[in-house]
């Protein structure tokens, strides 16, 4: 699941090497933490969070297929 987030993030940022994800389990909810270079924050969030929302939608679709609950945090 975190690989999916990585693929998306790496393809839209300017510094793909700085893309990192961490995974933790929070009471049955999988939490994916995405971090990117400071200059790339806007690239994964977008105006009014539009890009972040789109990434979350795709992650959610994949989680639905696997019957899991996933949350994406961007920091």
């Amino acid at each position, binding site marked *: 699941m975190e*690989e*999916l987030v990585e693929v998306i993030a790496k393809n839209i940022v300017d510094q793909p090497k700085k893309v990192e994800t961490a995974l933790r389990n929070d009471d049955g909810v999988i939490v994916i933490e995405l971090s990117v270079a400071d200059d790339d924050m806007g690239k994964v969030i977008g105006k009014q969070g539009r*890009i972040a929302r789109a*990434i979350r*939608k*795709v992650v959610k*679709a*994949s989680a639905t*297929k696997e019957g899991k609950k996933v949350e994406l945090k961007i920091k």
Partner: protein
Amino acid sequence: MKKKLYKAKSVNEAIKKGLKDMDIDRNQAEINIIEQGNKGFLGLIGKKKAEIEIIVEDDPVTKGKDFLENLFSKTNIDVDIEVKEAETNQEQVVYDLHSPDLGIVIGRRGETLDALQYLTSLVVNKNTEQYYRIIIDAEGYRDRREKTLERLAHKLAQKAVKKGRKVVLEPMPPHERRIIHITLKKDSRVKSYSEGEEPFRKVMIETID
């Protein structure tokens, strides 16, 4: 994006060699001169080969398809990506997705499809001068949805006229609201407009007195 270095006696020769090797035309490539080259004194002292770099951008169709394939390979969803050649041109690229999990790929009111379309558009148009419109469909979903929205627009216009009051629709993405507006342009009894902030913006239908 592909990048390759070529060396030859002169810059022109290096370019010729590179274009032939990569099998492309001059206008498809970005060429950087790294070393001008030097014939040297009497062709002996200080002789240096010219060196150039050729950069070729992937075409938008491949860029988008690669991204989508890469993306779905990280999920458990089986998706086949078809390029709609007939609708693809210099301004837009159209993909049609096929999957046994079509419902998941489309999402509620096409939200997942819209998200995929938006992200693919960002990837394809990243670092390019020309803007390509990206359309992602799933087994003709967008056409079917358009027909549904047209029917809905007519039905609710009728309701607004009959009850003589404003009818408020559920929140919809911009392209879906557009279909409602276009449909109702032909109905002289009502007018439609949108209110609220994305992603909760709604269409309103009102009678014209």
